[in-house]
C-alpha cells in the first residue's frame, strides 16, 4: 500500500472541494478474507476506490489479484469481511435482503462466459430480469425489442445461445444486463473469451452503453488493451490491494509501480527492440540519439519537421510506438539527429522546450 498511496491522484472535479460529487460506487477500506480448507486467502486488502457517475472505470491486475472479488462486492455476490461499499449513496451492508434485491435491479452484470440460459431463446434470456420482477408482458416485449435492436440482434430473437457466436452471446448478455434500466454495469472480463476483432466491437458497444444510456461502467480485465480502448479511469490491483489509480492518461504516462509499468508496456512499448539496438551501435558517435515521450497535441511529427526545417539537421525516426488514449495520441519515438554539432545542440534544446519528455540515449 505504501507506494500506492503516494501516487494516488484523487481527481476532484474542477472547483472547490465542497463540490466533490458523491461517487456512484465507493469502496471504503474494503477487505475480504476467504477461509477454505484451513487456509485463509486475503482476496482484498483495504481497498479504497471511488467510481464517479459516468465513468468507465477499469480495474486491471493479473489472475488472482482479487478483481472479481472486488467487483462482486458491488452487488453483494461477495460480502466484505471489513469496510463498506456504498452504491449510489446506499451502504450495502446496512440494507435488508429485500432492499438489496432492489439495489441489484439497478446494477447489471456481464460475464466472461456469458452465463446465458441455454434452454431459453435470446428473447427470453433478455426478458428474464423483467420476468423476475413481474413486469407486464407487453412492457417486456417493448423493452426486449428495444434492447435487441440496440445490440443489433433483432433477427436473433428466436435463436438459442448455442446457435450464436461468442460476440453475439455477449451482446445478449449486455442486453439482459440492461433490461431493468440499471445505472451501473459491472463487467467481469467480458471480452476475455473473445477474439481481438470481436473484443473491439463489444468494447464499442459498451462505450455506447455508457454514452447513450448514461450508465456508469466498472470493468475488470487483465488486458491493458481493454483499459486503453474505453476506460477513462483505471486502478491497478496486485495481491488484493489497489497499488495505483488515476486517469488512464496519468497512469499510462507515468506508471508508478512495477506491475503498472508492465501493463503499460503490454500496449505501449518503451523498450528498444534488438534490431534498433544494432542500428544505434552502428551510429554511435556520429549523431545524437534521443527518446521522445509525448502525450497529446505535441505529437512527434509536426514538431520533428519543424526541427528539421529550423535547425538544418537530419531527423530520422528509428523506432516509434504510438497509440491513442481517450482520443489523445500517446507514445514514444526514438529519433536520430544528425548534422553539425551546434545545430544538433540547438535542435535538442528546442525539443526540450516542447511539451514532451525527452532523453538522450546513451547506448
Amino acid at each position, binding site marked *: 500500500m505504501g507506494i500506492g498511496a503516494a501516487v494516488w491522484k484523487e481527481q476532484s472535479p474542477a472547483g472547490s472541494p465542497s463540490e466533490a460529487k458523491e461517487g456512484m460506487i465507493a469502496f471504503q477500506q474494503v477487505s475480504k478474507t476467504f477461509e477454505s480448507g484451513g487456509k485463509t486467502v486475503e482476496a482484498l486488502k483495504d481497498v479504497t476506490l471511488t467510481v464517479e457517475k459516468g465513468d468507465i472505470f477499469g480495474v486491471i491486475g493479473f489472475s488472482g489479484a482479487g478483481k472479481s472479488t472486488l467487483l462482486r462486492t458491488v452487488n453483494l455476490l461477495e460480502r466484505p469481511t471489513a469496510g463498506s461499499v456504498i452504491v449510489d449513496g446506499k451502504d450495502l451492508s446496512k440494507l435488508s435482503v429485500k432492499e*438489496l434485491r432492489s439495489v*441489484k435491479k439497478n446494477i*447489471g452484470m456481464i*460475464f466472461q462466459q456469458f*452465463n446465458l440460459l441455454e*434452454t431459453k431463446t435470446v428473447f427470453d434470456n433478455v426478458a428474464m430480469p423483467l420476468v*423476475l420482477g413481474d413486469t407486464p408482458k407487453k412492457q417486456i416485449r417493448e423493452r426486449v425489442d428495444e434492447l435487441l435492436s440496440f445490440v443489433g440482434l433483432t433477427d436473433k430473437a428466436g435463436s438459442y445461445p*448455442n446457435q450464436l457466436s461468442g460476440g453475439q452471446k455477449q451482446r445478449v448478455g449486455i442486453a439482459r444486463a440492461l433490461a*431493468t434500466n440499471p445505472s451501473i454495469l459491472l463487467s467481469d472480463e467480458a471480452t476475455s473469451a473473445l477474439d481481438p476483432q470481436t473484443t473491439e466491437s463489444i468494447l464499442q458497444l459498451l462505450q455506447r452503453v455508457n454514452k447513450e444510456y448514461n450508465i456508469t461502467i466498472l470493468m475488470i480485465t487483465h488486458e491493458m488493451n481493454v483499459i486503453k480502448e474505453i476506460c477513462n479511469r483505471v486502478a491497478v490491483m496486485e495481491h488484493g490491494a489497489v497499488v495505483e489509480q488515476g486517469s488512464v492518461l496519468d497512469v499510462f504516462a507515468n506508471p508508478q509501480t512495477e506491475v503498472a509499468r508492465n501493463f503499460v508496456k503490454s500496449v505501449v512499448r518503451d523498450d528498444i527492440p534488438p534490431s534498433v539496438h544494432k542500428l544505434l551501435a552502428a551510429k554511435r558517435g556520429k549523431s545524437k540519439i534521443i527518446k521522445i515521450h509525448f502525450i497529446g497535441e505535441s505529437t512527434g511529427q509536426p514538431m520533428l519537421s519543424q526541427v528539421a526545417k529550423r535547425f538544418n539537421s537530419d531527423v530520422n525516426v528509428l523506432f516509434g510506438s504510438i497509440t491513442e488514449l481517450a482520443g489523445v495520441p500517446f507514445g514514444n519515438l526514438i529519433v536520430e539527429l544528425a548534422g553539425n554539432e551546434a545545430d544538433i545542440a540547438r535542435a535538442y534544446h528546442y525539443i526540450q522546450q516542447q511539451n514532451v519528455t525527452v532523453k538522450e540515449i546513451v547506448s
Partner: protein
Amino acid sequence: MEVSSEQVFQALYETVYMVSVSLVFATVIGLPLGILLVVTRKGHILENSAIFSALNPVINVLRSVPFIILLVAIIPFTRLVVGTSIGTTAAIVPLVIYTGPYIARLVENSLLEINPGIIEAAEAMGATPLQIIFRFLIPETLGSLILSITTATIGLIGATAMAGAVGGGGIGDLAITYGYQRFSTITIVATVIILVVLVQGIQSLGNVFARKIRRN
C-alpha cells in the same frame, strides 16, 4: 401348465399400476429432497449445514438397503399406511421408500450439472431463492432430470418383479410363479420380451424428451 393371455394382461396392468403410482409418490418425495440436497450444501443459495448433514446420511442408509430386505423390514409400517401388508397396493409402500431416495440422489446429480455461472447471473439479477430454483436450476437441467426419472422408472420395473414376494403380482411375479416354479419356458420368454419392450420404450421416450429440451 400355460398362462392365459388374460393372466399376462392382468400382470402387465399390475406392473404398470405399481410403477406409475410408486413413481408419482417417489418423485413427490425425491424431487424436493434432491433440490434440498443441492441448495443447502456449502456455498449454495440456501446453505444450511444442519439440513444437509441430516438429510445426506439418511438417504445413504435407505439407498444401501437391498429392496427385498426393505420390503420385509418395513412390513409393520406398510400395514400402518395402507392397512395391509399383502397385495399390489401394499407393494407400493416399499417401492416408494426404495425409489424416493434414489430419485433424490439422481435429481441431486442432475441439478449439480448446472453451470455455476447461471446461478451467479440469477443472483446478480436479484432473483429470490425460489425463483432461482424454478426459473434457472430446474429449467436448465430439465433434460438431465427427465433422464434421471427415466432411470428411476426402469429401476422401479426391476423392483416390482420382487414385489411378487408380498403378493404384489405383476410381470415379474408371473415369470416366477409360472415360468420358474412351473417350468413354463414360454412364460419366461413372454415376460422377458414384455419387460424388454417396456424398458426400451420408457428409455426411448425419456431420450426423446430430454433431447428436445436440451436442444441438441
